């Protein structure tokens, strides 16, 4: 088979993108360089580099097996302690909840987030206020806006405009839109919300509330929010 460096690297990238273990081959320095960059890019999706519970269990199993084979290791830690450790670490660290499950788990939404999972921010003395022109927000984009009193993120999802609070419900950091991932990232604690305000991902002791929704409309060429 006479494939080129570009072909071999393409196959490597295909394996990464399909979540397969890449095949071994003899690579030139240039190929290794490209493959390193590919591995970095493949792992940059939020959450991609987190181990599943099954993976942690298997790592635990291997270490426990090594302990069995090598009594000398008992000097450092007994097998009993190891098992206890790995049991608790695995249980405490990873709960393998797929996104689908999160998205449909509305019954367990935290207090204050209302029926259906998200509260609607409806101020007592609100008014429709323009925050951006329609042309500023092409389809597939989200942008942060501020009315002074309210920080919001406005979203154009295939022509449908909506708005959610732009503040993370955990500790109040300003969210950053990630259009490619169709999500809003919290820079403080790796929490991410979907465009609808639902929690997609978090690394906290308790699940944060979904983002409150903010009433929005298009008036002429302006996007308006109902805010104070």
């Amino acid at each position, binding site marked *: 088979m006479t494939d080129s460096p570009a072909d071999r690297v393409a196959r490597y990238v295909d394996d990464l993108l399909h979540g397969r273990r*890449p095949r071994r081959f003899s690579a030139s320095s240039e190929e290794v360089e490209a493959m390193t960059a590919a*591995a970095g890019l493949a792992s940059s999706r939020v959450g991609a580099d987190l181990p599943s519970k099954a993976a942690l269990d298997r790592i635990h199993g291997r270490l426990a097996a090594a302990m069995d084979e090598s009594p000398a290791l008992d000097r*450092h830690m007994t097998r009993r302690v190891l098992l206890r450790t790995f049991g608790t670490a695995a249980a405490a660290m*990873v709960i393998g909840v797929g996104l689908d499950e999160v998205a449909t788990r509305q019954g367990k939404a935290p207090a204050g987030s209302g029926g259906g999972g998200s509260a609607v921010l409806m101020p007592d003395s609100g008014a429709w206020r323009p925050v951006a022109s329609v042309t500023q927000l092409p389809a597939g984009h989200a942008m942060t806006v501020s009315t002074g009193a309210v920080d919001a993120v406005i979203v154009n999802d295939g022509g449908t405009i909506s708005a959610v609070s732009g503040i993370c419900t955990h500790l109040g950091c300003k969210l950053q839109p990630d259009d490619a991932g169709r999500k809003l990232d919290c820079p403080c604690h790796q929490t991410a919300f979907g465009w609808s305000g639902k929690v997609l991902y978090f690394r906290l002791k308790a699940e944060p509330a979904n983002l409150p929704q903010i009433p929005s409309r298009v008036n002429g060429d302006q996007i308006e929010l109902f805010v104070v």
Partner: protein
Amino acid sequence: MVALTDLRIVPNPEPDDLSRTETAVYPDWESVYEDNVVGIYQLVFRKVGNAADAEDLAAEVLMQTLKTLRLPAPVHNVRAYLVKTARTVLADHWRSHYAAKDAAAELQQVPPDALTAPRNSAASERAQRLLALLPDQSRRILELRFLRGYSVREAANELGVTESNARVLQFRALRKAAELELEVLT
């Protein structure tokens, strides 16, 4: 598309408390493991880009450390040792799987603070910054492939080139990205 099923909810039982690492001591393996297993996995994942290899390599790093490290030991010493071990294990992996020469294996450099630095949100941001620095065509092929999950054929159609050209374009773009990463971001 991004593989959404890869997302996991991971409550962080012990948020990284960086202030304590200067003086704190790991009394036993329990604390070493609990504090670092996810960090080690993430560290190697970023270098190999796939879960199967990351799992093997994370286990290997922990195994080697388990065999040699004496406890109790200061947290920062243990973490430095874990990172050093990870570096060796990764270089071995690239040598044995891809016949990478020493110089190429050096590309597997892991920053010494890899276990205390911010984790995956930083990786994502870094990737975005890196892509933004690439020439237009290079950026587009990598965005289509890595962010939007296009196959080579789909990316080729989108860019109006042949599949073979798309593979060459991808190869060059990745090399450029690797060079930029070394030059600009380190």
